[in-house]
């Protein structure tokens, strides 16, 4: 259980980092918090 959770946490972090960096390179944007954002709008 511990190993599975640790693996998932590492995969999640790597995926988030890859997504963030690839967005910065390709779209020249990085998604950051936007208070007042309405999901789906």
């Amino acid at each position, binding site marked *: 259980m*511990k190993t599975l*959770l*640790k693996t998932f*946490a*590492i995969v*999640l*972090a790597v995926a*988030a*980092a890859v997504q*963030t*960096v690839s967005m*910065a390179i390709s779209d*020249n*944007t*990085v*998604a*950051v*918090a*936007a*208070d007042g*954002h309405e*999901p789906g709008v």
Partner: protein
Amino acid sequence: MKANQKCPALDLSGIAGAGLMALFGIVAAWRWYSTLSLFFALLAFRDFVAAYYFSVRGKSKAHGSRFASILAYVSTALPLLYRAPGEPPSLPIALAANLLFILGFLISTLATIELGSRMGVSPAVRGSLCKTGIYRWIRHPMYTGYIVAEVGWILLGAFNAPLFAASLTGYLLRMRLENRILSNAR
């Protein structure tokens, strides 16, 4: 059950803690939904992992004062209050903030998993001192992870600095209280 068999002690504080951590996780998930900040998504994941370990943890052998417990829960709730900037930040700032969120929560989540059933918010002795995994390199990885992640909020807006200062003070106090209770229990 035979008369000489002992029923395992029910850790009510663990169950209450699990409920509270799950509540923090729900609030973090709601903030993620309303702001789309990666910080709150990772915080929600960490809080739900913590809630699971709270629900299966053992009874503590020694625990801190009521002040230490209140400080711990308030300090755990503070990161839910960070505010996003009105104007979108520059690309390098946004990138740096998101990478700090990811690194910080990776450290903090790995520490939570490593502690497992010894997990607690308020300082207490629950089994042997954890010296495996990320605890081999960092003495207080959970707080270190939170501090790293929360630095990202200062990059996004200086108006988050007072909240960061309060949060940092809370972590430093908790580290001191934990060190004291762990050294007294040895």
